[in-house]
């Protein structure tokens, strides 16, 4: 009986997910498709961030840099050398991975706030470089991508294609996190987060584990940059390298539940449509009110549920389903 209960609980989310994916093709409203795209993109970005930020507890506030590196690399290769964004995406991701590796290699000996603020500074350096290196990036004027539709150009008429593309991206990140959590890398990272000295005394090379994680994290984040660039056909420093992106990545993870594979999913599903709806409702009547409400909700959630909404929802879900099982038991 107990096993059944577990199975029911565990299979429900997947059923819902599959139904949801099937439903996407039925949605014709571009506004909602855009919202889904944006939400899934943030599932993936936050998921990428938390590989190093959530599991290793290395609280980076510089991930916009990797996103921007991904966007700029594939876009510049596409514009100047007609390299397909599919290839450019992985070149950009690899490049971001290298940068992420070097950054972590130098900054991982900083602890706590020192690390966080060093990454914040790094993000700003990349933003300033992209803004002032006008011969390469055309600065704040930004880069317009050629509007030439086609699979090889990763440019699609319909938003559905983008939604599926970003869906694959998000699933890859979650899947990777899910597997990593159950493999050595995940154990090492958590061991480091919980107690570095103890982990090292057991012979765990936490430094190497963190380097690996941070390289992968940068790699995944950069892929999002390319997809975003292909979706908007226009990038500029403030749109792909803003400090708000560096802040929102951990925020989504935290609201959803830090250090859990599905945390970013919960976080993104809760935060992004919420902020979009709030803006749609209040945006034009009371300037800034939507952000005040957003800030208030943020504070309330963090103070009342510091472990994130994801676990609370899961617990609630289990309680509901658990209660149902009990009822069946009682009647049977």
């Amino acid at each position, binding site marked *: 009986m107990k096993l059944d209960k577990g199975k029911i609980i565990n299979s429900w989310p997947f059923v819902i997910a599959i139904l949801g994916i099937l439903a996407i093709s039925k949605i014709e409203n571009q506004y909602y498709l855009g919202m889904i795209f944006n939400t899934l993109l943030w599932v993936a970005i936050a998921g990428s961030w938390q590989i190093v930020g959530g599991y290793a507890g290395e609280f980076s506030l510089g991930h916009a840099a990797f996103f921007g590196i991904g966007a700029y690399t594939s876009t510049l290769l596409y514009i100047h050398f007609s390299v397909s964004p599919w290839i450019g995406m992985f070149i950009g991701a690899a490049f971001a991975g290298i940068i992420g590796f070097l950054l972590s290699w130098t900054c991982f000996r900083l602890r706590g*706030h020192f690390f966080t603020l060093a990454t914040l500074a*790094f993000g700003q350096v990349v933003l300033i470089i992209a803004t002032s290196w006008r011969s390469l990036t055309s600065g704040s004027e930004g880069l317009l991508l050629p509007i030439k539709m086609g699979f090889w150009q990763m440019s699609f008429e319909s938003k559905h294609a983008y939604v599926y593309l970003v869906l694959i991206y998000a699933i890859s990140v979650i899947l990777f996190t899910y597997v990593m959590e159950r493999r050595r890398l995940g154990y090492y990272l958590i061991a480091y987060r919980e107690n570095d000295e103890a982990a090292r005394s057991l012979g765990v090379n936490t430094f190497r584990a963190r380097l690996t994680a941070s390289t992968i994290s940068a790699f995944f984040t950069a892929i999002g940059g390319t997809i975003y660039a292909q979706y908007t056909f226009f990038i500029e420093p403030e749109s792909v390298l803003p400090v708000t992106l560096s802040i929102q990545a*951990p925020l989504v993870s935290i609201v959803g539940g830090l250090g859990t594979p599905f945390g970013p999913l919960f976080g993104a599903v809760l935060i992004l449509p919420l902020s979009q709806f709030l803006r749609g409702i209040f945006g034009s009547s009371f*300037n800034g009110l939507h952000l005040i409400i957003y*800030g*208030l909700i943020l*504070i309330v959630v963090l103070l009342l549920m510091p472990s994130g909404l994801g676990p609370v929802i899961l617990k609630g879900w289990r309680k509901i389903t658990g209660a149902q099982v009990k009822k069946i038991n009682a009647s049977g």
Partner: protein
Amino acid sequence: MDILVQVVISGILFGGIYALVSIGLTLIMGVMDIVNFAHGEYLMVALYTTYFLNQLWNVDPYVAAIAVIPLFFLFGLLSERVLIRPTLDKPAFVHVFVTLGLSIILQNLALLMFSGNFRSISVPYAQYSYEIFDILINYPRLVIFIVGILVAIGLHFFLHYTWVGKAIRATAQNKNAALLMGINVQKVYAITFAIGVSLVGLGGSLLMPIYSVYPTVGFQFVLVAFVAVVMGGLGSIKGAVIASFLIGLVETLSGFFIDPSVKQALYFTVFIMVLLFRPYGLFGKKTKVA
């Protein structure tokens, strides 16, 4: 030669502005071990307060400081009680994002109430400069420089030679030990936060003759203040001041000799380099307030 001296002096005076903004922040970060992302918004509120005191009752910004400091002490106590204290027993990221939420709220409240206009006051001495051997020294900037140094020295004496100050330092060094010694840690945190906020309030009043105030004004100062505080070593007042002057000099010299558009990239790089060689900042020991 003259121009070089002028650039250096401008850089040091400019560093004084950062110093004044970062002293309060380093105290808070060093003692309470929190990153206060709303620090820039406290500065923004102080600038608005000074602005309206000046516009409505024609109060000189330097006189306004006398009112702003106690007002911000209360403001600090209140926000510590409502927002910061509940985060202290939770993981570190909670306070980061709670202060971030506060910063979003304050920014947009300002937008809602005062619109996005860039407001400035004009006082006759604002652009007055002393001329010494062809070197121009701006009066309000000199005031900020001197007050910044005085505040740093005063705070040093306060922390070393008063009971409250000693309690603050003890708490920063070891919270549990301080508790064992009968120090009311909660009260110490509240006072520390309030002092930090009232110092940034003072900063706001003194900055008003030079800068304009608008809802997002805090960001350009807070980022540099973070850099100064971390570069100097968390909680090190001397460190924050010296780092501020260093940043001011790097910014001005590189802006003059290289290019104004890259100067910020340069001091962020200097910041990362300093941390690589001194992971706890220039004057930082793991946690200590001095």
